[in-house]
């Protein structure tokens, strides 16, 4: 660690462009990522409304839809191909530009340097580039809405050969596909630049007294996530490049020989269908943990502050998050149980998949166990943190089924899977983002958010999300196949009323998100002024001004004397002791 973080120092910017656009300041970059994720989540949510309208009410003429795509929705009725195209964009936007961006890149960029006591990250230019590269990736992806026959329709998972053979396989599989693969390859570059900064900040830029074990759990979560990001995105990027080559260079990485599509014999030969799946899921599984681990850190951090006590064990949480990160590389084949891969491999993958339940369960037990005997404060942030725990339990429990290949025979590619991953990603991870927002908004902007609106937002979203996603599991058990734009098979027709219920719940819950958006925007400009430490927190972000000055801490870099969560410690002179407080005492519950 460094006493003076000399090589991160850059002077305060003076020009408008340097201050707000091409900023080197990690705090501005964090806010830029947040803004990008905010736009992306509303676009992704709007797409989900279109999907749900079409699924719940078959051939419903959605007013104005033909303006979005004349061929996709003639007479405002969505065609089968347009449904799949919207579905693909929904998944891609949400997974990449919301769930990887907000919990990790947005909050991590803003708070990691501050929480470890650094002036900024060690490579500010790379950091700035990481945002703008991500932004370009977003533009490239969105542009596919406006080309020829629209975006790719192959799902966010883009299985080959459908994704590799070109437009003969369907609308959007020509230029739309190339734009998707290019966008994601560009996104990977942005993530690699970001991960590089996070890792070096954590290892090299901690201030005096800030040992690794004294870092808050959010810093640990971001550190572990960035290690996962470095390795996972490094595999996705070449996979996307190979996919593009199959389109433009006549290669056959993912295309087997002698394929006949629509009566046309393709000239490709020798490629492997399953190779794409292995490459994709080697990235894809760590990716979903990249989406959830920061949320685990945020929930821990927010809960501790609002419980007014540390968790039962700091070390155990770190060990669990780390083991989840490591195990996440060994489980990816559970997406491929019936893919045609060797069935022995399927069994092999199922064991780490079942075992990863253990650290996840321990984290939940520690959270719940720490609630015992705590002095729990209820506010918007803590409600979302507690809601995360409930959602994570629900989503995790359905994993028991999917982890077993024999049961996966029944549930693979059904709505059961869709329910599982939406509960953990679309709900739990998003709750982590909400908790972080309500908690850190004062520090980031200098204003308080409206508590009443925050609580209203929570109630509508918590109940609404359960109403939307619990029924998905029942549909899946009844063998409702996923990625169907309509339910015309005789055995599916009795399930359509459930879909109608889900659609109504989805539209209502979606509408509730505008309460959050209003709260965000209104508070940013007209919210009450925020004090430096509104939640009486102990970690370094609360020891500096609100909002923090350009170099985060002003004249003197902080010196750390305490563990991150000294709340209600016997022997301490006050109810909470900040990490920078020079006060000395013995903590009877200190972990040795």
């Amino acid at each position, binding site marked *: 660690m460094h006493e003076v973080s000399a090589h991160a120092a850059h002077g305060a910017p003076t020009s408008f462009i340097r201050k707000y656009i091409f900023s080197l300041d990690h705090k501005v970059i964090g806010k830029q990522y947040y803004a990008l994720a905010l736009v992306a989540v509303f676009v992704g949510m709007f797409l989900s409304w279109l999907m749900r309208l079409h699924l719940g009410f078959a051939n419903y003429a959605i007013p104005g839809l033909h303006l979005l795509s004349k061929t996709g929705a003639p007479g405002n009725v969505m065609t*089968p191909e347009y449904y799949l195209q919207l579905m693909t964009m929904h998944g891609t936007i949400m997974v990449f530009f919301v769930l990887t961006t907000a919990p990790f890149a947005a909050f991590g960029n803003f708070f990691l340097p501050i929480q470890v006591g650094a002036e900024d990250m060690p490579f500010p230019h790379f950091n700035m580039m990481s945002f703008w590269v991500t932004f370009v990736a977003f533009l490239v992806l969105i542009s596919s809405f406006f080309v020829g026959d629209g975006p790719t*329709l192959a*799902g966010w998972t883009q299985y*080959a050969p*459908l994704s590799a053979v070109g437009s003969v*396989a369907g*609308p959007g599989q020509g230029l739309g596909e190339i734009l998707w693969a290019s966008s994601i390859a560009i996104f990977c570059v942005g993530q690699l630049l970001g991960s590089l900064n996070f890792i070096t900040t954590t290892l090299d830029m901690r201030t005096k007294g800030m040992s690794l074990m004294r870092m808050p759990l959010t810093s640990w979560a971001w550190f572990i996530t960035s290690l996962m990001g470095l390795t996972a995105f490094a595999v996705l990027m070449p996979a996307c490049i190979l996919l593009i080559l199959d389109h433009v260079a006549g290669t056959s990485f993912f295309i*087997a*020989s002698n*394929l*006949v599509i*629509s*009566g046309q*014999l393709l000239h490709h030969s020798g490629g*492997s*269908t399953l190779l794409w799946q292995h490459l994709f899921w080697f990235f894809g599984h760590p990716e979903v943990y990249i989406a959830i681990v920061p949320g685990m850190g945020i929930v821990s951090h927010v809960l501790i502050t609002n419980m007014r006590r540390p*968790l*039962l064990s700091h070390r155990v949480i770190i060990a669990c998050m780390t083991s989840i990160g490591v195990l996440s590389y060994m489980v990816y084949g559970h997406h491929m149980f*019936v*893919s*045609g891969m060797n*069935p*022995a491999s399927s069994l092999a993958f199922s064991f780490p998949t*079942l*075992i990863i*339940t*253990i*650290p996840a*369960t321990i984290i*939940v*037990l520690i959270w*719940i*166990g*720490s*609630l*015992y*005997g*705590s*002095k*729990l404060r*209820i506010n918007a942030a803590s*409600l979302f943190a507690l809601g995360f725990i*409930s959602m994570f339990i629900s989503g995790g429990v359905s994993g*028991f089924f999917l982890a077993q290949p*024999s*049961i996966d*025979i*029944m549930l*693979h590619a*059904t709505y059961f899977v869709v329910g599982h991953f939406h509960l953990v990603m679309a709900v739990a991870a998003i709750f982590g983002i909400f908790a972080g927002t309500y908690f850190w908004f004062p520090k980031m902007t200098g204003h308080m958010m409206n508590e009443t609106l925050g609580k209203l937002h929570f109630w509508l979203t*918590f109940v609404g999300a359960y109403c939307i996603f619990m029924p998905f599991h*029942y*549909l899946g*058990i009844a*063998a409702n196949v996923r990625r*169907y734009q309509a339910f*015309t098979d005789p*055995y599916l027709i009795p399930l359509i009323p*459930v879909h109608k219920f889900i659609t109504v719940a989805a539209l209502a819950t979606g509408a509730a998100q505008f309460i959050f958006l209003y709260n965000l925007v209104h508070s940013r400009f007209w919210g009450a002024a925020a004090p430096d430490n509104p939640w009486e927190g102990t970690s370094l972000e609360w020891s500096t001004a609100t909002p923090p000055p350009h170099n985060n801490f002003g004249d003197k870099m902080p010196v750390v004397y305490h563990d991150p969560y000294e709340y*209600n410690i016997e022997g301490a002179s006050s109810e909470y002791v900040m990490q920078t407080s020079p006060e000395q005492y013995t903590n009877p519950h200190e972990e040795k």
Partner: protein
Amino acid sequence: MAKLFAVTIILIAIGSAIPIVMHMWPMPADISLNGHLIDEQYADTMMEAGLAFLSSQILLAIFIWKFSHPKPDAKVKYFPGGARVLVIAGFLLVGTEVVALGVFGAKAWGMAYFTPPAADAIPIQVQAQQFAFYFRYPGPDGKFGPIHPNLIDDAEGNYFGLDTTNDQDSKDDIVTAEIAVPVNREVHLFMHSRDLGHSFYVPELRVHQDFVPGLDLTIHFTATKIGRYEIVCTQLCGLGHYAMTAYLDVKSQEDYETWLKQQAALQ
């Protein structure tokens, strides 16, 4: 508000369990010889998952109820046994449970994938293409003739690309748009994809296997109940994926043979 939240969590937990317990939208009934292994595994998992779900949600709710809005001078208490007890509980309860599920679940998986088909299993080929399944019976010679991709002509009904003029083995092959199997006889299903990734899923049969372009693989199953069942594609294959269906007829041995003769006459 905390108490309301706690009650809400409990209501949602119990409410979520009701459709499962009441079998409101049940799994399609099993009509296969070995499917009961999967169903038993599923029932065990449901019980354990249900227990874990309900107990953790209720505990969460109880603690929220009890420990919010504390008196200002209340002292913070520690969960009896602290983190150690919870770590041990996590390992023991969940660890043994998941390992047990994994070990016992291997039997159901093994029956499907690690046992060879019976010697007298009926060979049938299924070909997947955008957006239909077509089937082929090998005929009296028991052999499937070679597939010539360049001879494929859907307009002429030559879905498989067979050369019935020059290939002896193809002459007696029977190509159909539906698959019929005799009840209680094992079927050895040869799976071939003509173009992209597709999947063969018959929920009642407890059979689900992806097609892999370039890799012809086989599965086997025995149907135990006469009836007409749907085969649905579950691997996204393009705009018609939702409409990619075919029908499986489980017939008596007699009816099956009659049907096969009729189909042969239509070739």
